């Protein structure tokens, strides 16, 4: 109370006082966030997860000087690391794109108050630098700069690297605000990274070598540090002007720029009421930022196939083996896994709508089933190019699709109905844990184990194709009894409908 009402006279102290006030408010907002206060267990899990990541970072950081010392044969560890740094920054750019939060939405709460707009924007932008993301570079390279480089050279080198990371932050402030909603953003980044990593892998050209002298020079001179500081100032100024120009509420609201016009999937209408639900669900996916990103990310997941199929160790088990079956389940189910894990939560804002319709909940589930089948089938078609690694892959993937639609999907539906949580579709996608609960973590277990329980006994006792046959048989059985299996989940919803609806309405 005291400091809030302290008398403030001069304009400078008012300026500082305002910043302090805004900072206090930010702190309160963080500790009072809905996700935090709703469930203690959940925040413990998240905290543990973050600690785990930082422990890993520390391990890598302290291991780095010694690993490089032992393994780098040509040149010094320093020049080796310098030639690879650009890849680190590429990766940093990518994860920043997904994780870094845009500070600017908060503005709408203050725009009508007598706080200067430029002060508000400056404050929000500068505050955004305070983030665990800013620590990653420091943690990762601090031991290296002390142990391997050492002395002032190490300090200046680390300073340069750290400033580069801040440059990325400032760049992202602008980039994500401008392109974050557009598919162009995600795909542009994916393309950029595949191009550069691919080029380095196949040895066309190595961009790392091109920029290595800059970091090399940073161990001898403070000029690179100075250059990055100037770059930081430039990018910060760029973000600042961009935000000032776009600080009206209509430009702050997200998801507005991106609209599909005629995006009904006509084919779905053939399935009656459930088909209509599937159609509505498709529009839901395409018209909300969070679901849209889930959709495109699940398409990116398909590239995991390269990792699975390209690895000779995995292929030692013959053209049909357990790993490939797992890959098949994973690839053909990529959308099912991404989207299905938050099954009902997608509809949390509209759940009363379905409750109000005759057979509405059943139609909703059937609709989701139809849509998931449809998209999974399209995804199967997208995996066809993998027959480059052997035609058996197509066979495995077809069987896995049948199994996913016959069995996995029901497991998913049933498990996610355990305390579904509401979520806000208009908020960002990745690392937005709204709607995610313990059930989503446990889901991965049946997903991996159940198909193997079916496949392994037959493949071990007889042969791999018998295992596939068993998977197909179980899957087809699941498809035949689809209605019965679906009804189990419908009944479960009916039984808990008041609890689910009230938790979706966010009544405490």
């Amino acid at each position: 109370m005291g400091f809030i009402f302290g008398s403030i006279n001069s304009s400078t102290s008012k300026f500082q006082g305002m910043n302090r006030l805004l900072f206090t408010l930010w702190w309160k907002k963080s500790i009072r966030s809905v996700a935090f206060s709703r469930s203690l267990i959940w925040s413990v899990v998240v905290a543990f997860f973050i600690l785990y990541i930082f422990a890993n970072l520390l391990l890598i950081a302290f291991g780095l000087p010694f690993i490089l010392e032992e393994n780098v044969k040509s040149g010094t560890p320093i020049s080796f690391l310098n030639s690879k740094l650009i890849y680190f920054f590429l990766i940093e750019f990518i994860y920043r794109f997904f994780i870094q939060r845009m500070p600017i939405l908060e503005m709408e709460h203050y725009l009508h108050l007598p706080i200067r707009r430029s002060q508000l924007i400056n404050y929000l932008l500068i505050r955004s630098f305070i983030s665990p993301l800013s620590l990653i570079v420091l943690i990762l390279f601090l031991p290296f700069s002390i142990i391997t480089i050492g002395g002032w050279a190490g300090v200046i080198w680390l300073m340069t690297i750290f400033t580069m990371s801040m440059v990325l932050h400032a760049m992202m402030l602008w980039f994500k605000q401008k392109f974050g909603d557009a598919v162009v953003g995600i795909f542009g980044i994916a393309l950029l990274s595949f191009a550069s990593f691919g080029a380095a892998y196949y040895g066309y050209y190595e961009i790392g070598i091109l920029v290595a002298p800059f970091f090399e020079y940073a161990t001898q001179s403070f000029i690179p540090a100075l250059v990055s500081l100037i770059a930081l100032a430039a990018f910060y100024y760029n973000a600042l002007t961009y935000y000032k120009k776009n600080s009206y509420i209509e430009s702050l609201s997200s998801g507005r720029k991106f609209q599909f016009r005629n995006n009904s999937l006509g084919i779905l209408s053939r399935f009656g009421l459930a088909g209509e639900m599937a159609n509505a669900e498709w529009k839901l996916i395409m018209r909300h930022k969070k679901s849209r990103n889930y959709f495109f990310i699940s398409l990116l997941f398909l590239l995991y196939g390269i990792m699975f199929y390209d690895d000779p160790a995995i292929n030692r088990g013959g053209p049909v083996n357990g790993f490939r079956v797992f890959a098949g389940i994973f690839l053909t189910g990529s959308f099912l896994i991404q989207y299905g894990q938050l099954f009902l939560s997608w509809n949390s804002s509209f759940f009363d709508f379905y409750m109000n319709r005759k057979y509405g909940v059943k139609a909703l589930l059937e609709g989701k089933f139809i849509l998931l089948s449809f998209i999974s089938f399209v995804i199967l078609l997208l995996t066809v190019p993998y027959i480059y690694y052997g035609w058996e892959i197509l066979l495995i993937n077809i069987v896995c699709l049948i199994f996913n639609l016959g069995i996995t999907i029901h497991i998913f539906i049933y498990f996610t109905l355990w305390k579904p949580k509401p979520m806000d579709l208009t908020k960002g996608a990745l690392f937005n844990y709204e709607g995610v609960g313990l059930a989503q973590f446990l889901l991965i277990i049946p997903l991996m184990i159940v198909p193997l329980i079916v496949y392994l006994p037959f493949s071990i006792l007889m042969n791999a194709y018998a295992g596939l046959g068993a998977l197909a048989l179980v899957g087809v059985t699941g498809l035949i009894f689809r209605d019965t299996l679906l009804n189990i989940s419908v009944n479960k919803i009916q039984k808990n409908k008041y609890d689910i609806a009230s938790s979706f309405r966010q009544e405490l």
Partner: protein
Amino acid sequence: MIEIISVTKKYVDSTVLDIPKLEIPRNQCFGLVGNNGAGKTTLFRIILDLIPTTTGHVRNEGHIVSKTEEWKEFTGAYLDEHMLLSYLTPDEYFETLAKIYNLSAEDVEVRLEPFKELFNGEIRGTKKYIRDLSKGNVKKVGIAAAFLGNPSVILLDEPFENLDPSSQIKLKKLIEQAKVDQSCTFLISSHDLDHVTEISDRIVLLEKGKVIKDMKGSSEMMEQELKKYFGAE
């Protein structure tokens, strides 16, 4: 005085607001009515510089609202819950505003004293965050916040919506009191013809972004004319 000078607002395929000239003199209670989509909220947002105009500008006591920010010192507003900080308790929110407006704790008490009746014991002293309050109580917090900075201009969008009848009557009294005591200018949009005609000195009717009626006179007369327009009689 608020002057709206050749203001238009266009989106890609439609014009949502087109007002060549509109002046709201000091100490007037200005009522804004119109069907959904008539542009009431858009006009308020433009006056508050929350959205940019396509052409024209708004002056608030001589300040062009999109150029300066001085007018924010004497302009209070509550349009919707985005203007609140929903993670604070009402008391914390008032304290925060006090800091922003440079008010002392005593000032806050004095300013909120008239709201005691409207608050009905459910706002001050509660440990609930604003996001957990009922819609009506959130509205009360927002309206009180609009009055808090000792403003000479107050904009309220649908202030009677979500309030129970007795709160509506109390709010009307508060507005009339502030008009007399502090010579406040009020801009109020509402669908409630009874209330808005009762407190307003002047009523402007918007249709598809255009002013189609500008009425002054007795509240009975204005109400009758409005009811004719809205097809109630």
